[in-house]
Protein backbone atom coordinates (compact mmCIF):
# COMPACT_ATOMS: atom_id res chain seq x y z
CA UNK A 1 0.00 0.00 0.00
CA UNK A 2 1.59 3.22 -1.17
CA UNK A 3 1.19 6.49 0.67
CA UNK A 4 1.99 9.92 -0.70
CA UNK A 5 4.27 11.95 1.56
CA UNK A 6 3.20 15.57 1.05
CA UNK A 7 6.49 17.28 1.96
CA UNK A 8 8.92 14.70 0.58
CA UNK A 9 6.68 14.74 -2.53
CA UNK A 10 6.96 11.05 -3.20
CA UNK A 11 5.04 7.84 -2.65
CA UNK A 12 6.42 5.13 -0.41
CA UNK A 13 5.05 1.86 0.92
CA UNK A 14 3.29 2.25 4.28
CA UNK A 15 4.56 -1.09 5.56
CA UNK A 16 8.11 -0.29 4.53
CA UNK A 17 7.97 2.90 6.62
CA UNK A 18 6.26 1.20 9.58
CA UNK A 19 8.80 -1.60 9.33
CA UNK A 20 11.67 0.86 9.21
CA UNK A 21 10.31 2.67 12.27
CA UNK A 22 9.87 -0.68 13.97
CA UNK A 23 13.37 -1.90 13.14
CA UNK A 24 15.06 1.27 14.33
CA UNK A 25 12.77 1.35 17.38
CA UNK A 26 13.70 -2.28 18.13
CA UNK A 27 17.41 -1.48 17.96
CA UNK A 28 17.04 1.68 20.00
CA UNK A 29 14.98 -0.13 22.62
CA UNK A 30 17.54 -2.92 22.75
CA UNK A 31 20.62 -0.69 22.93
CA UNK A 32 19.14 2.32 24.75
CA UNK A 33 20.00 4.88 22.07
CA UNK A 34 17.65 7.15 20.14
CA UNK A 35 18.32 5.51 16.80
CA UNK A 36 18.25 8.74 14.82
CA UNK A 37 21.74 8.08 13.54
CA UNK A 38 20.38 4.90 11.93
CA UNK A 39 17.05 6.27 10.79
CA UNK A 40 18.34 9.26 8.82
CA UNK A 41 20.76 7.24 6.63
CA UNK A 42 18.08 4.54 6.14
CA UNK A 43 15.55 7.15 5.00
CA UNK A 44 18.11 8.55 2.57
CA UNK A 45 18.82 5.02 1.29
CA UNK A 46 15.14 4.48 0.41
CA UNK A 47 15.04 7.74 -1.54
CA UNK A 48 13.75 10.40 0.87
CA UNK A 49 15.56 13.69 0.11
CA UNK A 50 18.28 14.20 2.76
CA UNK A 51 16.87 17.58 3.80
CA UNK A 52 13.44 16.05 4.49
CA UNK A 53 14.95 13.01 6.20
CA UNK A 54 16.95 15.17 8.61
CA UNK A 55 14.11 17.55 9.49
CA UNK A 56 11.45 14.85 9.83
CA UNK A 57 13.73 12.72 11.94
CA UNK A 58 14.02 15.61 14.42
CA UNK A 59 10.24 15.55 14.80
CA UNK A 60 10.30 11.78 15.30
CA UNK A 61 12.92 12.18 18.03
CA UNK A 62 10.61 14.50 20.00
CA UNK A 63 8.09 11.67 20.25
CA UNK A 64 10.53 8.91 21.12
CA UNK A 65 12.39 11.02 23.71
CA UNK A 66 9.14 11.97 25.46
CA UNK A 67 8.12 8.36 25.95
CA UNK A 68 11.69 7.54 27.00
CA UNK A 69 12.05 10.37 29.49
CA UNK A 70 8.70 9.57 31.14
CA UNK A 71 9.91 6.03 31.78
CA UNK A 72 13.16 7.31 33.30
CA UNK A 73 11.39 10.01 35.29
CA UNK A 74 9.21 7.42 37.01
CA UNK A 75 12.47 5.78 38.19
CA UNK A 76 13.79 9.21 39.31
CA UNK A 77 16.72 9.05 36.92
CA UNK A 78 16.59 12.58 35.49
CA UNK A 79 18.84 15.45 36.60
CA UNK A 80 16.67 18.40 35.58
CA UNK A 81 19.19 21.04 36.60
CA UNK A 82 21.91 19.46 34.50
CA UNK A 83 19.37 19.01 31.70
CA UNK A 84 18.51 22.71 31.72
CA UNK A 85 22.16 23.80 31.64
CA UNK A 86 22.84 21.43 28.74
CA UNK A 87 19.74 22.83 27.10
CA UNK A 88 21.11 26.41 27.09
CA UNK A 89 24.00 25.23 24.95
CA UNK A 90 21.73 22.92 23.00
CA UNK A 91 19.29 25.62 21.92
CA UNK A 92 22.06 27.97 20.75
CA UNK A 93 23.86 25.11 19.00
CA UNK A 94 20.78 23.78 17.23
CA UNK A 95 19.75 27.26 16.06
CA UNK A 96 23.18 27.81 14.53
CA UNK A 97 23.00 24.29 13.11
CA UNK A 98 19.72 24.98 11.29
CA UNK A 99 21.07 28.26 9.88
CA UNK A 100 24.19 26.41 8.70
CA UNK A 101 21.93 23.75 7.24
CA UNK A 102 19.98 26.19 5.04
CA UNK A 103 23.19 27.94 4.03
CA UNK A 104 24.84 24.68 2.97
CA UNK A 105 21.66 23.60 1.22
CA UNK A 106 21.58 26.75 -0.91
CA UNK A 107 25.17 26.23 -2.07
CA UNK A 108 24.56 22.53 -2.78
CA UNK A 109 26.89 21.09 -0.16
CA UNK A 110 24.39 19.83 2.43
CA UNK A 111 24.52 16.19 1.29
CA UNK A 112 28.30 16.26 1.55
CA UNK A 113 28.29 17.80 5.03
CA UNK A 114 25.62 15.39 6.29
CA UNK A 115 27.65 12.51 4.87
CA UNK A 116 30.95 13.72 6.29
CA UNK A 117 29.66 14.37 9.81
CA UNK A 118 28.04 10.93 9.82
CA UNK A 119 31.16 9.12 8.66
CA UNK A 120 33.33 11.02 11.12
CA UNK A 121 31.19 10.64 14.22
CA UNK A 122 29.82 7.17 13.53
CA UNK A 123 33.34 5.98 12.83
CA UNK A 124 34.69 7.58 15.99
CA UNK A 125 31.92 6.45 18.33
CA UNK A 126 31.66 2.99 16.75
CA UNK A 127 35.40 2.37 16.98
CA UNK A 128 35.62 3.59 20.60
CA UNK A 129 32.64 1.53 21.64
CA UNK A 130 33.94 -1.60 19.94
CA UNK A 131 37.37 -1.13 21.49
CA UNK A 132 35.95 -0.56 24.98
CA UNK A 133 33.50 -3.44 24.92
CA UNK A 134 35.91 -5.95 23.40
CA UNK A 135 38.43 -5.02 26.06
CA UNK A 136 35.76 -5.30 28.75
CA UNK A 137 34.73 -8.67 27.39
CA UNK A 138 38.30 -9.93 27.34
CA UNK A 139 39.06 -8.76 30.87
CA UNK A 140 35.61 -9.71 32.17
CA UNK A 141 35.89 -6.60 34.28
CA UNK A 142 34.17 -3.25 33.70
CA UNK A 143 36.07 0.01 34.13
CA UNK A 144 34.24 2.43 31.86
CA UNK A 145 36.57 5.17 30.75
CA UNK A 146 38.46 5.59 34.00
CA UNK A 147 41.73 6.78 32.38
CA UNK A 148 39.92 9.37 30.20
CA UNK A 149 38.11 10.88 33.17
CA UNK A 150 41.38 11.42 35.01
CA UNK A 151 42.89 12.99 31.94
CA UNK A 152 40.09 15.59 31.69
CA UNK A 153 40.09 16.30 35.40
CA UNK A 154 42.63 19.12 35.49
CA UNK A 155 41.22 21.64 33.01
CA UNK A 156 37.65 20.89 34.04
CA UNK A 157 38.49 22.23 37.46
CA UNK A 158 40.18 25.34 36.07
CA UNK A 159 37.02 26.72 34.40
CA UNK A 160 34.94 29.51 35.99
CA UNK A 161 31.14 29.60 36.73
CA UNK A 162 31.08 26.56 38.97
CA UNK A 163 27.72 25.00 39.73
CA UNK A 164 26.52 22.22 41.98
CA UNK A 165 24.49 19.40 40.40
CA UNK A 166 23.09 17.48 43.36
CA UNK A 167 21.56 14.56 41.51
CA UNK A 168 24.66 13.99 39.40
CA UNK A 169 26.83 14.48 42.49
CA UNK A 170 29.01 16.97 40.61
CA UNK A 171 30.49 20.40 41.27
CA UNK A 172 31.70 21.61 37.91
CA UNK A 173 31.81 24.70 35.71
CA UNK A 174 28.50 25.39 33.88
CA UNK A 175 30.54 26.17 30.76
CA UNK A 176 31.31 22.48 30.34
CA UNK A 177 27.71 21.21 29.99
CA UNK A 178 26.84 24.32 27.96
CA UNK A 179 29.70 23.54 25.57
CA UNK A 180 28.69 19.87 25.30
CA UNK A 181 25.09 20.92 24.71
CA UNK A 182 26.16 23.42 22.07
CA UNK A 183 28.21 20.95 20.02
CA UNK A 184 25.65 18.16 20.28
CA UNK A 185 22.81 20.59 19.43
CA UNK A 186 24.59 21.83 16.33
CA UNK A 187 25.33 18.30 15.14
CA UNK A 188 21.75 17.28 15.91
CA UNK A 189 20.47 19.96 13.55
CA UNK A 190 22.83 18.99 10.75
CA UNK A 191 22.63 15.23 11.17
CA UNK A 192 18.98 14.93 12.15
CA UNK A 193 19.70 12.89 15.24
CA UNK A 194 18.98 13.49 18.89
CA UNK A 195 22.70 13.18 19.39
CA UNK A 196 22.36 10.65 22.21
CA UNK A 197 25.19 8.59 20.75
CA UNK A 198 27.43 11.64 21.24
CA UNK A 199 25.76 13.07 24.34
CA UNK A 200 25.85 9.89 26.38
CA UNK A 201 29.62 9.27 26.03
CA UNK A 202 30.28 13.01 26.58
CA UNK A 203 28.24 13.01 29.81
CA UNK A 204 29.92 9.88 31.14
CA UNK A 205 33.51 10.56 30.13
CA UNK A 206 33.69 14.35 29.91
CA UNK A 207 31.29 15.48 32.65
CA UNK A 208 31.70 12.38 34.79
CA UNK A 209 27.98 11.90 35.49
CA UNK A 210 26.71 8.64 37.06
CA UNK A 211 25.61 6.27 34.26
CA UNK A 212 22.15 5.70 35.77
CA UNK A 213 21.28 9.41 35.48
CA UNK A 214 22.83 9.92 32.04
CA UNK A 215 20.22 8.45 29.70
CA UNK A 216 17.19 10.11 31.32
CA UNK A 217 18.91 13.49 31.48
CA UNK A 218 20.16 13.25 27.92
CA UNK A 219 16.65 12.34 26.72
CA UNK A 220 15.14 15.22 28.71
CA UNK A 221 17.23 17.87 27.02
CA UNK A 222 17.01 16.17 23.61
CA UNK A 223 13.21 16.71 23.63
CA UNK A 224 13.76 20.46 23.63
CA UNK A 225 16.68 20.47 21.20
CA UNK A 226 14.75 18.26 18.75
CA UNK A 227 11.63 20.42 19.18
CA UNK A 228 13.74 23.51 18.43
CA UNK A 229 15.21 21.83 15.34
CA UNK A 230 11.73 20.75 14.18
CA UNK A 231 10.38 24.27 14.57
CA UNK A 232 13.32 25.98 12.86
CA UNK A 233 13.42 23.44 10.01
CA UNK A 234 9.68 23.92 9.49
CA UNK A 235 10.09 27.70 9.32
CA UNK A 236 13.39 27.91 7.43
CA UNK A 237 13.22 25.00 5.01
CA UNK A 238 9.64 23.60 5.12
CA UNK A 239 11.11 20.12 5.19
CA UNK A 240 9.25 18.51 8.13
CA UNK A 241 6.97 15.76 6.78
CA UNK A 242 4.39 15.01 9.46
CA UNK A 243 2.95 12.02 7.59
CA UNK A 244 6.37 10.40 7.41
CA UNK A 245 7.05 11.28 11.06
CA UNK A 246 3.74 9.76 12.19
CA UNK A 247 4.43 6.44 10.43
CA UNK A 248 7.93 6.28 11.89
CA UNK A 249 6.62 7.04 15.38
CA UNK A 250 3.99 4.30 15.22
CA UNK A 251 6.53 1.73 14.05
CA UNK A 252 9.12 3.08 16.46
CA UNK A 253 7.18 2.86 19.73
CA UNK A 254 6.13 -0.73 19.05
CA UNK A 255 9.65 -1.72 18.01
CA UNK A 256 11.17 -0.03 21.05
CA UNK A 257 9.04 -2.08 23.45
CA UNK A 258 9.96 -5.37 21.81
CA UNK A 259 13.60 -4.29 21.57
CA UNK A 260 13.70 -3.29 25.23
CA UNK A 261 12.51 -6.74 26.27
CA UNK A 262 14.92 -8.53 23.95
CA UNK A 263 17.80 -6.39 25.14
CA UNK A 264 17.12 -7.22 28.77
CA UNK A 265 17.89 -10.88 28.05
CA UNK A 266 21.29 -10.30 26.42
CA UNK A 267 24.56 -9.64 28.27
CA UNK A 268 25.63 -5.97 28.25
CA UNK A 269 29.03 -6.47 26.59
CA UNK A 270 27.53 -8.48 23.75
CA UNK A 271 24.93 -5.76 23.23
CA UNK A 272 27.57 -3.06 23.06
CA UNK A 273 29.68 -5.02 20.59
CA UNK A 274 26.63 -5.57 18.39
CA UNK A 275 25.74 -1.87 18.55
CA UNK A 276 29.33 -0.90 17.76
CA UNK A 277 29.35 -3.20 14.73
CA UNK A 278 26.02 -1.79 13.57
CA UNK A 279 27.35 1.77 13.87
CA UNK A 280 30.47 0.82 11.93
CA UNK A 281 28.44 -0.86 9.16
CA UNK A 282 26.34 2.29 8.66
CA UNK A 283 29.54 4.36 8.73
CA UNK A 284 31.22 2.08 6.19
CA UNK A 285 28.28 2.18 3.84
CA UNK A 286 28.20 5.99 3.92
CA UNK A 287 31.96 6.22 3.49
CA UNK A 288 31.77 3.89 0.50
CA UNK A 289 29.06 6.03 -1.11
CA UNK A 290 31.17 9.13 -0.75
CA UNK A 291 34.37 7.66 -2.14
CA UNK A 292 33.04 5.32 -4.84
CA UNK A 293 32.79 6.93 -8.27
CA UNK A 294 29.20 8.20 -8.59
CA UNK A 295 26.98 6.80 -11.34
CA UNK A 296 26.55 10.28 -12.73
CA UNK A 297 28.99 13.08 -11.96
CA UNK A 298 26.23 15.61 -12.45
CA UNK A 299 23.18 16.16 -10.29
CA UNK A 300 20.29 18.60 -10.57
CA UNK A 301 18.21 20.65 -8.14
CA UNK A 302 15.19 22.76 -8.89
CA UNK A 303 16.08 26.08 -7.34
CA UNK A 304 13.07 28.20 -8.15
CA UNK A 305 9.48 27.78 -9.27
CA UNK A 306 8.04 24.45 -10.31
CA UNK A 307 6.46 23.60 -6.97
Amino acid sequence: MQIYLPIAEMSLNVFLLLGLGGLVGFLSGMFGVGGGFLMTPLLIFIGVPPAVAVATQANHIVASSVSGVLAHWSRDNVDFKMGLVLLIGGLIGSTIGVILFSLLRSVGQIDLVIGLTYVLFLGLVGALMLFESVRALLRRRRRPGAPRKLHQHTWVHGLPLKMRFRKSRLYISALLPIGVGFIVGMLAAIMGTGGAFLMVPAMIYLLGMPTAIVIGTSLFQIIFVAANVTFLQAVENQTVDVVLALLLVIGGVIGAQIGGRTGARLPAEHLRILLALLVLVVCGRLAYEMTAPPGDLYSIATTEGGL
Partner: protein
Amino acid sequence: MSSPGATPGSTLARLATAWLILIAVTAEARSQTLVADLSSHLIAITAGFTGTEVLLFGATEGEGEVIVVVRGPESEVTVRRKRRTLGIWVNRGSITFEGVPSFYAVASSRPLAEIVQPEVLSRQQIGVDNLQFQAPEGIRESRLKKYHDALIRNKQRAGLFSGEVGQVTFLGERLFRTEIYFPANVPTGSYLVEVLLVRDGEVVSAQTSPLIISKIGIGAEIFDFAHNRAALYGVLAIIGALMAGWSAHLVFRRV
Protein backbone atom coordinates in the same frame (compact mmCIF):
# COMPACT_ATOMS: atom_id res chain seq x y z
CA MET B 1 -8.30 52.15 -31.31
CA SER B 2 -7.81 55.88 -32.02
CA SER B 3 -10.41 57.68 -34.14
CA PRO B 4 -9.77 57.63 -37.91
CA GLY B 5 -7.83 60.59 -39.25
CA ALA B 6 -5.60 61.68 -42.11
CA THR B 7 -2.30 61.11 -40.31
CA PRO B 8 0.09 58.46 -41.64
CA GLY B 9 0.01 56.79 -38.24
CA SER B 10 -3.67 55.93 -38.44
CA THR B 11 -3.27 54.41 -41.89
CA LEU B 12 -0.66 52.18 -40.38
CA ALA B 13 -3.03 51.33 -37.56
CA ARG B 14 -5.77 50.34 -40.00
CA LEU B 15 -3.34 48.15 -41.92
CA ALA B 16 -2.29 46.49 -38.72
CA THR B 17 -5.92 45.83 -37.79
CA ALA B 18 -6.61 44.27 -41.16
CA TRP B 19 -3.55 42.10 -40.77
CA LEU B 20 -4.61 40.95 -37.31
CA ILE B 21 -8.06 40.01 -38.60
CA LEU B 22 -6.45 38.08 -41.41
CA ILE B 23 -4.30 36.14 -38.96
CA ALA B 24 -7.28 35.42 -36.73
CA VAL B 25 -9.30 34.09 -39.66
CA THR B 26 -6.43 31.92 -40.87
CA ALA B 27 -5.89 30.56 -37.38
CA GLU B 28 -9.54 29.65 -37.14
CA ALA B 29 -9.42 27.92 -40.51
CA ARG B 30 -6.27 26.07 -39.49
CA SER B 31 -7.63 24.97 -36.15
CA GLN B 32 -10.56 23.31 -37.84
CA THR B 33 -8.22 20.83 -39.51
CA LEU B 34 -7.32 19.42 -36.14
CA VAL B 35 -9.45 18.66 -33.09
CA ALA B 36 -8.11 17.01 -29.97
CA ASP B 37 -8.98 16.69 -26.31
CA LEU B 38 -7.81 15.00 -23.14
CA SER B 39 -9.74 12.41 -21.15
CA SER B 40 -9.07 14.59 -18.13
CA HIS B 41 -7.89 18.16 -17.67
CA LEU B 42 -7.10 17.72 -14.02
CA ILE B 43 -4.81 15.21 -12.41
CA ALA B 44 -5.32 15.03 -8.70
CA ILE B 45 -2.40 13.89 -6.59
CA THR B 46 -4.03 12.24 -3.61
CA ALA B 47 -2.59 10.26 -0.72
CA GLY B 48 -2.51 7.07 -2.80
CA PHE B 49 -1.15 8.59 -6.02
CA THR B 50 1.24 6.26 -7.86
CA GLY B 51 1.23 7.83 -11.31
CA THR B 52 -1.49 7.94 -13.93
CA GLU B 53 -2.23 7.87 -17.64
CA VAL B 54 -4.19 10.50 -19.53
CA LEU B 55 -5.80 9.62 -22.84
CA LEU B 56 -5.46 12.15 -25.65
CA PHE B 57 -7.75 11.64 -28.60
CA GLY B 58 -8.70 13.65 -31.66
CA ALA B 59 -9.35 13.83 -35.35
CA THR B 60 -7.57 15.40 -38.27
CA GLU B 61 -8.97 16.73 -41.49
CA GLY B 62 -7.20 15.22 -44.44
CA GLU B 63 -3.78 13.65 -44.61
CA GLY B 64 -1.04 14.19 -42.07
CA GLU B 65 0.88 12.89 -39.13
CA VAL B 66 0.31 13.90 -35.52
CA ILE B 67 2.86 14.91 -32.92
CA VAL B 68 1.94 15.46 -29.26
CA VAL B 69 4.19 17.52 -26.97
CA VAL B 70 3.54 17.75 -23.22
CA ARG B 71 5.33 20.44 -21.21
CA GLY B 72 5.25 21.04 -17.47
CA PRO B 73 5.61 24.50 -15.91
CA GLU B 74 9.04 26.04 -16.36
CA SER B 75 11.44 26.42 -13.49
CA GLU B 76 15.03 27.25 -12.68
CA VAL B 77 17.31 24.22 -12.36
CA THR B 78 20.86 24.13 -11.02
CA VAL B 79 23.15 21.44 -12.41
CA ARG B 80 26.11 20.54 -10.25
CA ARG B 81 29.21 18.57 -11.15
CA LYS B 82 31.12 16.38 -8.74
CA ARG B 83 34.89 16.21 -8.66
CA ARG B 84 37.12 13.96 -6.64
CA THR B 85 38.67 16.01 -3.85
CA LEU B 86 40.87 14.35 -1.23
CA GLY B 87 39.36 10.98 -2.08
CA ILE B 88 35.70 11.97 -1.80
CA TRP B 89 33.29 13.22 -4.42
CA VAL B 90 32.37 16.85 -3.84
CA ASN B 91 30.06 19.16 -5.79
CA ARG B 92 32.33 21.61 -7.59
CA GLY B 93 31.08 23.95 -10.25
CA SER B 94 27.47 24.54 -11.21
CA ILE B 95 25.37 26.15 -13.94
CA THR B 96 21.83 27.40 -13.38
CA PHE B 97 19.48 27.04 -16.31
CA GLU B 98 16.22 28.96 -16.65
CA GLY B 99 13.12 27.98 -18.58
CA VAL B 100 13.48 24.27 -17.90
CA PRO B 101 10.15 22.45 -18.19
CA SER B 102 9.55 20.38 -15.07
CA PHE B 103 8.11 17.63 -17.27
CA TYR B 104 8.50 16.90 -20.98
CA ALA B 105 7.12 14.14 -23.18
CA VAL B 106 6.65 13.64 -26.91
CA ALA B 107 4.52 11.19 -28.86
CA SER B 108 4.30 10.87 -32.62
CA SER B 109 2.44 8.80 -35.17
CA ARG B 110 5.70 8.10 -37.05
CA PRO B 111 9.40 8.59 -36.19
CA LEU B 112 10.02 12.35 -35.91
CA ALA B 113 12.92 12.44 -38.36
CA GLU B 114 10.77 10.89 -41.09
CA ILE B 115 7.95 13.43 -40.95
CA VAL B 116 9.41 16.83 -40.01
CA GLN B 117 12.40 18.87 -41.16
CA PRO B 118 15.20 19.03 -38.55
CA GLU B 119 14.94 22.86 -38.55
CA VAL B 120 11.27 22.64 -37.60
CA LEU B 121 12.02 20.17 -34.79
CA SER B 122 14.69 22.49 -33.51
CA ARG B 123 12.57 25.66 -33.81
CA GLN B 124 9.50 24.14 -32.14
CA GLN B 125 11.67 22.32 -29.57
CA ILE B 126 10.17 18.95 -30.42
CA GLY B 127 12.02 16.00 -28.92
CA VAL B 128 14.27 15.93 -25.86
CA ASP B 129 17.38 16.56 -28.00
CA ASN B 130 15.94 19.84 -29.27
CA LEU B 131 15.11 21.38 -25.91
CA GLN B 132 16.72 24.73 -25.24
CA PHE B 133 17.26 26.33 -21.84
CA GLN B 134 18.57 29.76 -20.99
CA ALA B 135 22.02 29.72 -19.44
CA PRO B 136 24.09 32.64 -18.14
CA GLU B 137 26.32 34.41 -20.68
CA GLY B 138 30.00 33.69 -21.13
CA ILE B 139 30.17 29.95 -20.53
CA ARG B 140 32.33 27.86 -22.85
CA GLU B 141 30.29 25.98 -25.44
CA SER B 142 31.72 22.54 -24.61
CA ARG B 143 31.19 23.00 -20.87
CA LEU B 144 27.65 24.27 -21.39
CA LYS B 145 26.82 21.25 -23.53
CA LYS B 146 28.02 18.83 -20.85
CA TYR B 147 25.82 20.49 -18.21
CA HIS B 148 22.89 20.71 -20.62
CA ASP B 149 23.15 17.00 -21.46
CA ALA B 150 23.51 16.17 -17.76
CA LEU B 151 20.31 18.07 -16.97
CA ILE B 152 18.40 16.06 -19.58
CA ARG B 153 19.98 12.80 -18.43
CA ASN B 154 19.02 13.46 -14.80
CA LYS B 155 15.48 14.42 -15.77
CA GLN B 156 15.17 11.26 -17.85
CA ARG B 157 16.42 9.14 -14.99
CA ALA B 158 13.78 10.68 -12.74
CA GLY B 159 11.19 9.79 -15.39
CA LEU B 160 10.30 13.43 -15.96
CA PHE B 161 11.63 13.74 -19.52
CA SER B 162 10.55 10.96 -21.84
CA GLY B 163 13.56 9.14 -23.21
CA GLU B 164 11.64 7.67 -26.11
CA VAL B 165 9.00 9.14 -28.36
CA GLY B 166 5.60 7.71 -27.49
CA GLN B 167 3.25 6.26 -30.05
CA VAL B 168 0.27 8.14 -31.49
CA THR B 169 -2.02 5.53 -33.04
CA PHE B 170 -4.38 6.25 -35.90
CA LEU B 171 -7.72 4.48 -35.91
CA GLY B 172 -8.53 4.52 -39.58
CA GLU B 173 -7.66 7.61 -41.61
CA ARG B 174 -8.59 10.45 -39.28
CA LEU B 175 -9.05 9.43 -35.66
CA PHE B 176 -5.99 9.26 -33.46
CA ARG B 177 -5.18 8.56 -29.84
CA THR B 178 -2.25 8.34 -27.50
CA GLU B 179 -1.70 7.77 -23.81
CA ILE B 180 0.44 10.16 -21.79
CA TYR B 181 1.96 8.67 -18.66
CA PHE B 182 2.62 10.82 -15.61
CA PRO B 183 4.82 9.15 -12.93
CA ALA B 184 4.27 9.33 -9.17
CA ASN B 185 6.87 12.08 -8.77
CA VAL B 186 5.28 14.35 -11.40
CA PRO B 187 5.65 18.02 -10.45
CA THR B 188 2.46 20.00 -9.88
CA GLY B 189 1.41 23.03 -11.90
CA SER B 190 -0.17 24.05 -15.21
CA TYR B 191 0.84 21.82 -18.09
CA LEU B 192 0.39 22.45 -21.80
CA VAL B 193 -0.44 19.64 -24.20
CA GLU B 194 0.34 20.69 -27.74
CA VAL B 195 -1.03 18.67 -30.67
CA LEU B 196 0.63 19.34 -34.03
CA LEU B 197 -0.57 18.26 -37.45
CA VAL B 198 2.33 17.73 -39.85
CA ARG B 199 2.10 17.60 -43.61
CA ASP B 200 5.00 17.53 -46.10
CA GLY B 201 7.56 18.16 -43.38
CA GLU B 202 5.88 21.29 -42.04
CA VAL B 203 3.51 21.96 -39.13
CA VAL B 204 0.22 22.95 -40.74
CA SER B 205 -2.01 23.08 -37.70
CA ALA B 206 -1.67 23.16 -33.93
CA GLN B 207 -3.90 22.99 -30.92
CA THR B 208 -3.01 23.52 -27.27
CA SER B 209 -4.92 22.10 -24.31
CA PRO B 210 -4.23 22.99 -20.70
CA LEU B 211 -3.79 20.31 -18.09
CA ILE B 212 -3.63 20.99 -14.38
CA ILE B 213 -1.75 18.71 -12.03
CA SER B 214 -2.36 19.55 -8.43
CA LYS B 215 -2.37 18.05 -5.01
CA ILE B 216 -5.82 17.32 -3.71
CA GLY B 217 -7.08 16.36 -0.29
CA ILE B 218 -5.16 16.05 2.93
CA GLY B 219 -1.73 15.89 1.25
CA ALA B 220 -2.34 19.21 -0.50
CA GLU B 221 -3.60 20.79 2.70
CA ILE B 222 -0.55 19.66 4.62
CA PHE B 223 1.79 20.95 1.91
CA ASP B 224 0.05 24.35 1.71
CA PHE B 225 -0.08 24.60 5.47
CA ALA B 226 3.63 23.79 5.79
CA HIS B 227 4.51 26.53 3.31
CA ASN B 228 2.00 29.24 4.18
CA ARG B 229 1.86 28.92 7.96
CA ALA B 230 5.31 27.48 8.55
CA ALA B 231 5.62 28.55 12.21
CA LEU B 232 2.22 27.17 13.20
CA TYR B 233 2.97 23.97 11.27
CA GLY B 234 6.22 23.56 13.22
CA VAL B 235 4.46 24.08 16.55
CA LEU B 236 1.70 21.61 15.68
CA ALA B 237 4.27 19.04 14.49
CA ILE B 238 5.98 19.32 17.89
CA ILE B 239 2.70 19.09 19.84
CA GLY B 240 1.73 16.05 17.78
CA ALA B 241 5.05 14.39 18.55
CA LEU B 242 4.72 15.21 22.30
CA MET B 243 1.24 13.67 22.37
CA ALA B 244 2.42 10.60 20.44
CA GLY B 245 5.31 10.06 22.85
CA TRP B 246 3.09 10.57 25.89
CA SER B 247 0.39 8.20 24.67
CA ALA B 248 3.01 5.58 23.79
CA HIS B 249 4.24 5.82 27.38
CA LEU B 250 0.71 5.44 28.75
CA VAL B 251 -0.09 2.45 26.53
CA PHE B 252 3.08 0.51 27.20
CA ARG B 253 3.36 1.27 30.92
CA ARG B 254 0.49 -1.12 31.53
CA VAL B 255 1.73 -3.93 29.34
